[in-house]
């Protein structure tokens, strides 16, 4: 499904700030697999997603999606196949437009022609039905400007937008990290629901190790631009947070920096 082959990324090459962010990443995701990605701050997690999403290009290596080489494909072109949510709820939605207008822009990917009516009645009804499933009271706010909603509500709408025409791959970059705990939990529930119902192959970055082990089917740990752990099946099921931290210490030869990892 997704195949990352020997990908390297160097930032500010040839300057004093040169930084080898990714040092030969090999990763393969099976169709429908839900993979969580953890690692200390600066390990290169977001860089992997930005390479898959097309914001930046690798210095070396290839990225394939469904056997199609997307390494150098334009960002907006691959956006058709890849849905993305970021930590900042402001990024995914247009604040001065209403909920239904936002959804309609995302939904336009699956429609032909630019001059059709922007929001048809049946579209509104479809959006309403999707939002009802979220149980956030958003179904009554189709005509509300998104800027007036809470971070959690905005993130839920962003989630619906990036999955409304089912993507091949969903990339989540700490998408609940900026939310308060109850909103984060709701958004996480919605995420699980959408991913499972639509069987979307998903890669999720989180700094919450417990969440990483509990969510999805497989957990990958990144350290200084390299994959140092790849857990799945029984091994993952039996893994506790402290086991994982021990493994991390062994594999990374580093004193653990628990700056950002939340040991919950």
């Amino acid at each position, binding site marked *: 499904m997704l195949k990352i082959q020997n990908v390297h990324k160097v930032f500010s090459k040839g300057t004093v700030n040169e930084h080898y962010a990714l040092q030969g990443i090999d990763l393969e995701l099976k169709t429908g697999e839900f993979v969580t990605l953890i690692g200390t701050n600066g390990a290169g997690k977001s860089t992997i997603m930005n390479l898959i999403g097309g914001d930046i290009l690798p210095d070396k290596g290839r990225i394939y999606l469904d056997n199609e080489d997307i390494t150098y494909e334009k*960002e*907006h*072109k691959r*956006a*058709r196949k890849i*849905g*993305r949510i970021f930590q900042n709820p*402001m*990024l*995914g*939605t*247009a*604040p*001065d*437009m209403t909920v239904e*207008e*936002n959804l*309609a*822009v*995302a939904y*336009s*990917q699956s*429609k032909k*022609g*630019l*001059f*059709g*009516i*922007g*929001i048809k009645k049946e579209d509104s009804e479809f959006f309403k039905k999707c939002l009802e499933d979220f149980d956030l009271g958003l179904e009554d706010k189709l005509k509300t400007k998104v800027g007036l909603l809470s971070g959690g509500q905005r993130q839920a709408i*962003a989630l619906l*937008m*990036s999955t409304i025409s089912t993507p091949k791959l969903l990339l989540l970059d700490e998408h609940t990290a900026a939310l308060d705990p109850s909103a984060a939990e709701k958004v996480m529930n919605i995420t699980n629901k959408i991913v499972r119902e639509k069987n979307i192959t998903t890669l999720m970055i989180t700094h919450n190790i417990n969440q990483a082990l509990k969510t999805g089917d497989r957990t990958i740990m990144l350290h200084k631009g390299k994959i140092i752990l790849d857990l799945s099946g029984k091994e993952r099921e039996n893994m506790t947070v402290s086991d994982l931290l021990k493994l991390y210490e062994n594999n990374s030869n580093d004193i653990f920096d628990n700056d950002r990892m939340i040991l919950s």
Partner: protein
Amino acid sequence: MTLILGSLHIGLIYALLGIGVYITFRVLDIPDLTADGSLTLGLAVSGIMTINNQSILGLVLAFIAGCIAGSVTGLLQTKFGIHPILSGILTMSGLYSINLLIMGASNISLIGKESVFKIFEDMLGGLDKDIVRLIVCFVVCFVVSALFILFFKTRLGLMIRATGNNEHMVKASSINVDFIKIFTLAIANGCVSLSGGLLAQYQSFSDISSGVGTVVIGLASVIIGEVLFGRRTVTIGIISAVVGSIIYRLIIALALQSSIFPSYMLKLVSAVIVGVALSIPTIKKSIENRKLRKGGI
């Protein structure tokens, strides 16, 4: 009465400029300085075509020429990464030569030619000349406004609004942001150029310097409209740009007639009005902050 009628005529003609500026400045959220050049481009194209007895075709070509000018600015901004303000200045500056090339002189007269106004005056023979002119201006303005209002309800219209609001989200929705920007700058400048085209036929001459200060006039219309209607939907925005343009002309006409200031001060007064209006949000904010600092809770 002539003062009011004249202001209505000019106000409706410049309303097209207001709509164009509203689309770039408020909807797409890009300050576009191409307008100074594209308005004159409209005057030039429509002027030459009218001299050659093709006044209606002249208006169509003025619109198309404006679209091309806008696309150039759009290309400079998107494909070549030049700052939006500088892109507009480059196009505007280049257009000065193009406009001279089209007109063949810095000033051309259309007196006695078959302008659209003349055509309708002949057609509606019994009516007062000023009323016929009002009808022509109103119909053109109405049709253009209605088309843009409908356009912004389409899928593409929604994409344009989204691009002005959150480019990042538009890209994520697999929409080509560069195309959207180029297209929008094209139609907006087409509209500005059409405004110039109509103006040339109304005043029976085209002058190379007609475009000086155009952007400021457009902004003034948009802002006056916003004072009256507030900033709400695009539909209201377009209507308010039209109303704003008419009111702007009335204010100017009244001020000139009562000799509050001489006509050469016009551009300075307009610039001051726009400058003050645009700084109101910041001034409000700093007054609030000062209150907070002094008062506390």
